[in-house]
């Protein structure tokens, strides 16, 4: 064609700066907290962090940290980051992507030193703290993976709580009756799938709003397990509600690696499965044919349909897969944490798992770290209540929820859910 070539791709569109002050403001607020708390209100003395457990072969000396200089250093660094961020935005530039991570790490260090230094006993085992965090995070991670699997195909999964609870219940009952922990794990998986089947049928077949189904399912599972607990389980808890515990499997040599050994190589089979699940889901989603199709269904189901991908089948399958994962995670409560089922024993952790998934931007690996962070906050609360600190435990307990609000409000970075999340697909 002889037409003049002036197609739009010839010119780059002009880019203006749309300034958003949200991030620097958040930085500034927490910087003030850091200055007032960690720096001006530094306890004096030292804080001691043990980095070896008693049973480790290689014993490392505990780290003793002077609270005043570290408190000041951390407070000044976060203040500097806040100022830097203000200047960046003012100059129309974007913050480097690693900035929030640096900020968070420095803030957490400053906080830990301050809080441990202020306690009645200024000595804490870092290894224990971390190991405990992982333990607490295991069901959260399973739950958030269930969320990832489900929401990546476009089905909102509020029912994680119900899936975990159903898993915990089924594991307790099945393991008690059979006396076999693995039967318990299997039953937990099946129970999670059953909850998912309801979610899938109502949201995909009957097009009921996915949030409604999720919320109601949580109530249903809570009522059902509570009812059965009060009738059947408590009538004869010997038969029905005394499951054996999963053994801890120690991997020789590796378990003695300082700090990480206990976390990675001294776990029950559910713990190892958790690590495996994170890796498998990650690779599956982003590097396989299955994952490509799954993500396409969650982003643009009609496009997927035109390419011959069965949208609703893919959705149903993934939702059930998610249920299986969360159900398995639920078995952790009754087969690892405590050896019996109690009413509502998941206590809203399904919602924290949901929060971890969102905080982790629908990515299994980031969700894993988000769940770890939440587990860490919970564990810190337990540890600090033993140490006797000035910070009320309730505020630490709030932390995951506050962090999630900050995250979803887009105050730090931007999280974009799959485009078709929550939208039922009606063919033709």
């Amino acid at each position, binding site marked *: 064609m002889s*037409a003049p070539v002036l197609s*739009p791709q010839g010119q780059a569109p002009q880019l203006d700066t749309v300034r958003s002050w949200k991030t620097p403001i958040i930085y500034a607020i927490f910087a003030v907290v850091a200055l007032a708390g960690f720096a001006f209100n530094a306890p004096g003395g030292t804080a001691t962090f043990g980095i070896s457990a008693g049973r480790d072969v290689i014993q490392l000396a505990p780290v003793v940290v002077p609270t005043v200089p570290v408190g000041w250093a951390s407070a000044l660094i976060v203040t500097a980051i806040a100022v830097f961020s203000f200047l960046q935005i003012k100059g129309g530039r974007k913050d480097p992507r690693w900035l929030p991570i640096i900020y968070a790490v420095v803030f957490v260090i400053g906080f830990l030193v301050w809080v441990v230094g202020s306690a009645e006993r200024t000595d804490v085992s870092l290894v224990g703290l971390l190991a405990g965090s992982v333990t607490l995070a295991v069901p959260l991670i399973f739950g958030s993976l269930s969320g990832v699997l489900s929401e990546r195909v476009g089905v909102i999964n509020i029912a994680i709580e119900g899936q975990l609870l159903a898993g915990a219940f089924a594991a307790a009952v099945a393991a008690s009756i059979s006396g076999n922990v693995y039967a318990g794990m299997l039953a937990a998986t099946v129970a999670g799938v059953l909850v998912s089947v309801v979610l899938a049928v109502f949201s995909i077949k009957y097009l009921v709003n996915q949030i409604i189904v999720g919320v109601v399912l949580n109530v249903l599972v809570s009522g059902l397990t509570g009812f059965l607990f009060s009738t059947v389980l408590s009538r004869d808890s010997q038969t029905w509600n005394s499951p054996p515990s999963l053994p801890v499997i120690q991997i020789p040599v590796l378990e003695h690696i300082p700090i990480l050994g206990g976390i990675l190589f001294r776990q029950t089979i559910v713990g190892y499965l958790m690590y495996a699940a994170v890796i498998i889901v990650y690779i599956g989603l982003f590097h396989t044919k299955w994952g490509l199709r799954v993500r396409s269904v969650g982003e*643009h189901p009609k496009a997927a349909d035109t390419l011959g991908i069965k949208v609703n089948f893919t959705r149903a399958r993934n939702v059930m897969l998610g249920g299986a994962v969360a159900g398995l995670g639920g078995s952790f409560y009754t087969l690892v944490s405590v050896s019996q089922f109690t009413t509502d024993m998941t206590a809203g952790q399904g919602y924290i798992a949901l929060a971890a998934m969102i905080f982790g931007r629908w990515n299994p690996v980031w969700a894993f770290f988000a769940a770890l962070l939440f587990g860490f906050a919970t564990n810190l609360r337990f540890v600090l209540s033993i140490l006797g600190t000035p910070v009320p435990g309730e505020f630490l307990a709030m932390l995951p929820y506050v962090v999630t609000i900050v995250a979803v409000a887009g105050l730090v970075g931007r999280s974009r859910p799959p*485009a078709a999340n929550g939208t039922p697909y009606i063919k033709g």
Partner: protein
Amino acid sequence: MPARLTHSKNRLVGVLKLELEGITKRFGSLVANDHIDLVVEPGQIHSLLGENGAGKSTLMNVLYGLYHPTEGRILVDGKQVSFKGPGDAMAAGIGMVHQHFMLIPVFTVAENVALGNEATRAGGMLDLEKTRRRIREISDRYGFHVDPDALVEDLPVGVQQRVEIIKALVRDAEVLILDEPTAVLTPQETDELIDIMAQLKANGTSIVFISHKLREVKAVSDVITVIRRGKVVGTAEPSASTTELASLMVGRSVSLNLEKEEATPGEKTFQVRDLKVTAANGYRVVNGVSFDVARGEVLAVAGVQGNGQTELTEAVLGLQDHVSGSIKLEGKELVGRTVKQVLAAGVGFVPEDRTVDGLVGPFTIAENMVLDMYDRAPYATGLGMKPKVIADHAREKVNEFDVRTAGIDSAVGTLSGGNQQKVVLARELSRPLKLFIASQPTRGLDVGSIEFVHKRIITERDNGTPVIIVSTELDEVAELADRIAVMYQGKLMGIVPGGTSRDVLGLMMAGMSEEDAKAQPHSEHPMETGGPAHIEERDKAAREGHTEERGGDQ
């Protein structure tokens, strides 16, 4: 056109003949396709011409396996086939480029092309390398210039369309359906597409080209089938005249000219100076636009979809967040005001997408009639609303604007497109205006409604209101405009008189300045072919019953 054997995609392909026999598709009581017969010969470009809503896309979705026909059958090379889904259609060698691209914005080109047709290594691991190679191959052969690793959401529309074509070619499509492919393209990009279509045809791919644009259809087709109200009403050769094709398409001889008086522009009461709008993603979508509109004149803003026209009108209304410059209505500055204040200042606004921005679907007609006046006298005092006054108002306007409805308490979402648009117009024109803005005022409407809307707009102009029309349809621009402002990439390429030729407008829409556009020679333009008509009529009755049809859709 004789069947040929050609080398395509490195293998010998027997080109494919496609037949549709008596295809009927019903949605509830609505008949979208009524016994349609269609034969696409191998290596042919077969155009499907029809108005918006005539049933062209439904037919193609049936052919592509997205819908199941209520009746009728599809034959490929003489054998009956039954497509359970698009997968079957693709396997049979049919590819489709949808009007709204079926691309996943957050995927790369390679991922989009691979999707559903993935090459894998052991364990289901994706192997995109093969796909990338195929993309480069095809891209080189047709001069597509597509980078396999670019994110689709970053690509211009024209390139996205090429990705769609690559998707079909990678799947060895022998029949390619292009559904309204030029709707989003500049005239020059359209020429490039036509060039690509010719190359595809030369390589043995048959094409079904769906359009309601007569010029394009005439330029590319071997055969034209015209569809109206779900029925085939005739076939024509590309040499048929524009007027004849048009009357076949709309079912009666249409006067393409609206009867209107010469404009008598008065005082220039609306002024825009150096207006700049930045979108939320940081792109400057309106870049230093200045113009005036006088009382009693229609200024049409022409341009390809997505060149800042929408944002321009939204900036006037106060819907855009990052606006600089000045917008003055009778001396009052509008920049920085809320939508409510702008509306109160006497601006009437018909948004381009009525179902999304103009109406609240589940609300009643009465409620929609006061959607932007619900809190003003006489419809409300203080916090309390006056249902009776609102109902009376609605009844009056329903009569005045001839809205066909069961009653003012019907949900507005149940009305047809034409009647919905009348509700919007009735609302906006029911108060004294100092400026009237209408974006794509007739998009998706039937001919009867288009006439009605156009007349109303001219009436408002003749009442002495400054009027701004935004339209991507050059026909509409030509019909309504007293002056035409052409927008390209957020800038005004110039403001020209209402009678300016299509070619000049086309070049300006592609980013050429007014002077350069006028200096271009136009004789070689491929779309200007006329010639003796050859039209075969099948459904004469439908053509004669035009009086009924005008009311039928309302």
